[in-house]
């Protein structure tokens, strides 16, 4: 028996110029906040930008974007709604905020379903938010979307640094593109990991300060784009485009 969904994935993504997965292996380093805000920034710059939330058991980009009521249109497939200019898709559309415990095989199936059904149309950038860990979502991303580049996020903490080293080792072993490393939640008290990143031979894309205004801006894209966090991230975005 043949699963026909796999045959249309390339076509569905065919008119997207660049795919950027925001990844770390570690949780709580700011992947979702960066992925969401990066998509907003790219759209603000005039690019056609999309955002796909691949953290199926703990989606949070809809909370960050305040997009709890967004819902896709079904038209010969699933057409992502636009959230402040960004073509957006998340499993939260369909779970309605209920907890969705999923085993790895369910994550794989849901991911393939979304890839097979979603009509992104023409996009300059599709940003993909990924879950922590190195499990089914990461492996399927590598298996199903060969041309995705990885924007690696780390905090200055040693626990985070050790994790991204492992992630980068895996990405290299399958010849995936590592775009570079963003240091998030930098502060005066913590030593930067810039040196370690460069020693690894990866591009250090910049540092984003710990910004106490983030919490208040969650759920409000306009506010999010106005705080220091977004200002720091714009400098990172300038290096990507």
């Amino acid at each position, binding site marked *: *028996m*043949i*699963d*026909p*969904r*796999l*045959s*249309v994935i390339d*076509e569905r993504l065919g008119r997207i110029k660049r795919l950027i997965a925001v990844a770390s292996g570690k949780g709580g380093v700011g992947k979702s906040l960066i992925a969401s805000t990066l998509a907003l920034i790219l759209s603000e710059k005039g690019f056609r930008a999309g955002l796909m939330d691949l953290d*199926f058991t703990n989606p949070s980009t809809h909370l960050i974007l305040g997009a709890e009521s967004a819902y896709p249109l*079904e*038209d*010969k*497939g*699933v057409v992502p709604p636009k959230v402040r200019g960004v073509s957006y898709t998340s*499993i939260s*559309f*369909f*779970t*309605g905020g*209920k*907890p*969705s*415990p*999923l*085993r790895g095989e*369910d*994550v794989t*199936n*849901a991911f393939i*379903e*979304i890839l*097979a*059904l979603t*009509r992104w149309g023409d996009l300059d950038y599709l940003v993909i938010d990924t879950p922590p860990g190195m499990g089914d979502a990461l492996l399927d991303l590598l298996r199903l979307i060969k041309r995705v580049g990885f924007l690696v996020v780390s905090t200055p903490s040693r626990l985070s640094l050790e994790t991204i080293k492992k992630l980068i080792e895996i990405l290299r072993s399958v010849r995936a593109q590592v775009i570079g490393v963003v240091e998030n939640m930098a502060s005066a008290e913590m030593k930067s990991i810039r040196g370690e990143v460069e020693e690894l031979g990866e591009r250090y894309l910049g540092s984003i300060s710990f910004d106490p205004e983030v919490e208040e801006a969650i759920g409000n894209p306009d506010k999010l784009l106005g705080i220091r966090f977004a200002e720091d991230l714009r400098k990172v975005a300038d290096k990507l485009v």
Partner: protein
Amino acid sequence: MHEWALAEAVVSAASKLAGERGLGKITLVKIKVGELQQIDLEVFKFALSQIAEKLLPEAGFEISVERAEFRCRACGRTWRFRGEELDPEIREAIHVIPEVAHAFLRCPRCGSPDFEVVKGRGVWIESIVGEKSG
């Protein structure tokens, strides 16, 4: 209605398969549809015929529906999907992404969300029949 997108996938996969097997034309595609997908069969058939017109002009489509069955990994209980008892919004969500069943359904014996879809998930090409080219 995303039946169209699934029909595109089926036709695309069937044509690739025909290529791989050196079939010049395909006369029949047997499709199995899981009940959990809650496909509108009329819409699906119409989409298949429209899309196949160019790519597989001589193909017929035979569709069977497989009933959905769940098995609880915590207590072993098996049970069936009862779409008609669900809220229409929940049905619609499961229709698009069957895995979200884990957000809405629970084992009727022990309450666990940790169940397996034993049968009745997905759209599958069971077989194709065609004629060798040349």
